[in-house]
């Protein structure tokens, strides 16, 4: 197993490097000149001196490494080649610089990451806590009125875009009923501490959390249901029932385990999404999370932030695949990796 993991990690490194180069090239191709954008800050200063302004622009190009070719810049960004005489790349712990926020990228991402994880952990636990039992129930009671009702509800929920659901929930629960705040992350101007602070944050997170959970129910419920139906139709289940095993044991020990393989992929995916914010939810509810910073950075062409985020998600994705493969082995000994 250890050898297998090491081998996979080696592959992952190669994939990461190829993807990072491709992503870097893509952003380098976008017609945008960071040095020019930075130089605009100096325009007023050099108002009477266009030559000085041009010199400043060239100086900024050099400072940002833009006078080098794109492959040199890429190697500099990784940290294996010096830019302006200095190694200042990812390998040296320099994750890049956000020119919009005017500070290192890791400083920009720290708080949004914390907020995103905070809300997504609850959404994931709630989502899985509801969808798995509900999917199993529907799979077992296939064709019943309750199953049909759940099918209708989930297909409706699955079909409505999240921004529509969010606005609908705001209108009902925040505006009409006044149960929740419209947006924000805490009571403005509050100086709560300890548990009160935590509860206040949860109060503000409740509505987006409900929206996130509600909108995610449809897909997963249907997925679990169909996996369960497939598992329940297997010969081994018929055998188990014929042996006279109790129905609960048949469902949870035999059918559920056989249904797990496809579900593991989704469940792990859900947990991985804890790190990636929801662009829609965060923008609608004014949450300072990864989704919002991602889209803001893209629209404002803060590419060092975007690039680092994407590389982070590449790593998460690659690690997720490894975890899924390992978990498959636990769920089904037939595909367990022993070497």
């Amino acid at each position, binding site marked *: 197993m250890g050898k297998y993991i090491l081998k996979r990690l080696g592959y992952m490194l190669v994939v990461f490097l190829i993807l990072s180069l491709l992503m870097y090239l893509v952003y380098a191709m976008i017609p945008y000149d960071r040095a020019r954008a930075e130089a605009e800050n100096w325009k007023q200063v050099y108002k009477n001196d266009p030559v000085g302004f041009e010199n400043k622009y060239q100086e900024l190009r050099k400072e940002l490494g833009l006078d080098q070719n794109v492959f040199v810049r890429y190697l500099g960004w990784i940290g294996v080649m010096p830019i302006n005489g200095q190694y200042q790349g990812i390998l040296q712990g320099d994750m890049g610089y956000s020119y919009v926020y005017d500070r290192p990228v890791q400083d920009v991402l720290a708080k949004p990451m914390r907020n995103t994880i905070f809300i997504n952990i609850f959404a994931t*636990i709630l989502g899985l806590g509801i969808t798995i*039992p509900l999917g199993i129930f529907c799979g077992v009671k296939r064709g019943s009125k309750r199953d049909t009702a759940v099918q209708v509800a989930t297909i409706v929920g699955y079909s409505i875009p999240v921004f529509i659901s969010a606005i609908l929930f705001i209108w009902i629960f925040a505006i009409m009923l006044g149960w929740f705040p419209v947006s924000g992350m805490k*009571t403005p*101007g509050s100086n709560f501490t300890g548990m009160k602070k935590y509860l206040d944050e*949860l109060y503000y997170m409740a509505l987006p959390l409900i929206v996130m959970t509600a909108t995610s129910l449809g897909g997963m419920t249907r997925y679990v249901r169909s996996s369960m139906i497939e598992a329940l139709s297997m010969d081994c289940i018929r055998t188990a029932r014929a042996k006279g095993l109790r129905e609960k044991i048949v469902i949870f020990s035999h059918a559920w385990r056989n249904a797990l393989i496809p579900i593991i992929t989704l469940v792990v995916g859900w947990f991985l999404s804890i790190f990636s914010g929801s662009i829609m939810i965060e923008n*609608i509810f004014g949450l300072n999370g990864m989704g919002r910073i991602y889209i803001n950075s893209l629209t404002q062409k803060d590419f060092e932030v975007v690039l680092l985020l994407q590389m982070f998600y590449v790593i998460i994705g690659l690690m997720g695949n490894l975890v899924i493969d390992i978990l498959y082995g636990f769920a089904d000994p037939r595909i367990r990796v022993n070497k």
Partner: protein
Amino acid sequence: MNKRILSLVLSLVMLALCFVGCGPAANNGDDTGADTGVDTGVVSGEKNENKVIVGNTTELAGDFRWPGFGGSSAGAADQDVNGLITGYSTMETNQGGAYVWNDTVVKSHTEEENEAGDLVVTIEINPGLLFSDGTEVKAVNYLAYVLAFSSPVSVNAGHTGMSGQAMVGYNSFAAYCGEDVAVADDAEVVPTKEFAGIRLLGDYSFSLTISAEAGYYPYYFANTYGAVTPYPLDLVLGEGVEVKDDGNGAYLTEAWYAKGADSTAEALTYAKSEHLKEARYDVTKYAFSGPYVVSEWDEGTKECTLTLNPNFAGNFEGQKPSIETIVYVKIVSETQLDQFKSGAVDILAGITGGSDTQAALAVIDESNGKFAEVHYQRAGYGKLQFECDFGPTMFESTRQAIAYVLNTSEFAQAFTGGYGTVVYGPYSPDFDMWAAVEDTIELTEYAYSVENAKQALIDGGWIYNSKGEDFVEGQTGVDAVRYRKLTAEEAEATGGVNKTYASVANTDGVEYKTVEVNGEYYMPLAINWFGTTPNDVTDMLAARLVGTDDVNALGMVIRSVTGDFDKLLGEIYREESYGYGGTPTYGMFNLATGWNSAVYDYAYNWSLDPVYFGYSSNKLFDEYDVAFPYDMTGEKLTYAEAMEASGGKLGMDYLSMAMVYNAKTTDEYNEWWGAYIERWNKLLPDIPLYSNYYFDIYNAKIQNFETSPFWSPVDALLYCTIANAQ
């Protein structure tokens, strides 16, 4: 068993969230547990917290100390907070956007010209002014900032390092790196430790010398260089650095220039630049000079809480705030009115546009006096902007024809929903200079008239077809539009692009392009327009200009291409790194412009020298400037003298330069300004489309809330009180 425990835990989590989620809808955020419930403004007579929550759709970044750090990209929200925590500037902007001396701070000041022709501004400040931590504000606090941010140390920290660029001796001071170095005898700049144009004259007095040699004096707004702000010494300089003056100019002691660990002979770095980078974002360690102090900055929620600075002595009018707490929060534009109605925010500023304004006013109407509004006309306008150095839009007649055929009154009405108007030049009705010239200035309104548009084209020489014969209306194909015969100079303009000029986005299959007939070039009246998308203005303009009967009747065609704002800037500034293809293509753009203060200076924007085109949005050559150019080193004529010398033909460059470099008094400035606006109105480098009203809506518990284009809500809050404040 484990499954049961898991189910139980999940059920408990969901139950807890439901309880938490359905908690109280409103509380005052005080940890004491007191709950005042929903605000009832002045209607109920209940006690109100002495607190205001300001909502802003722009996110705070925490860059409050020096927003933008010397650059021009400071966040608007950060600047608002900066305005609340920074005070005691020697000059401040008043409600009309003009710079005025701050009498609360300045005991006396003099402005004198020295023998070299420089302007020496000597300022004595009042003793007893205090920072928020109780330390006294002295002359060194004013000079520390200018010295620090003129030195290479600040440049090393990412600042422009040009705070003192207008002052005598700047170049020498900026070149000083902490040690005397040998320089060649013929060196243009000799580094010096002292900043000759800045003098520390005593504990409470200092002087600033504005350089004539560097071109900063004479200058109409030269005294605004005397606007300096005090900062705590430890904030700007860190530990171990002093501001001194031994008689040759103020300077910073040696510790300021201590080299960084990674400093090399080729690339100097400074230890203090790390201090500046950290201090810039620190809102806890250092004192504040403004009416408020940052009591909490929550980067996670992007919320800033400010509380009264008890030591603040007042603004330029001696005004001190009475509202104890101001909370600045990020809001979502789509739901901001709902937040406002629910009491989550007390002020929403800058609401504009027909539907948004109507929705905001409906909230006020239905509030039974709980909410109120104040509105003003924006100091700026949306516009059609022309490239004036190539293509059909290089001709005044084309621009005027578009102005006539585009019904700007109707457009403004439609776009603003009735909450806006039209201006006829680059001005705000709130400018003092507009008030001075309003009764005498003569501006053409370009009222909608297809006939006038047609006549302008005919007068401008748009009278041919593609064969060089007379234009006949009602033709199809390439002869559906008018052509203009180009002079040799016009054909060769801007690298000869007019000879190959052609329409783009030819979706109807017809390409209009410059044709050569018998050695003469004829340019088609086909205008390539670039607009941003998504943008309502772009859509509305397209409906009024692209393929309409009016435009067709003129013998004109307008081709529309849309894209993002960077591409638009790339085309305007002709920056290939922004997607510009290397050949000027678009002659018309739609965007907007505005002013933050009444410092109105367009010098160098209309220069005939292409090297200054980076400062010009329009690249307009005014023929009057060719005949009577402005000479920076020449005699500074009065308006009457210049009019006489030019035969009454003063161009855009002359007027814009003379406005700030010749005028000495307000009356003189206004005279130049009025002439500049008139000339602009005739040449029409832009067509103003609308100047919308901005509505600031607020909870009526806030009393005396008055804003203007130059007086933001945070300025206004200094004068406000809370009704029935606790």
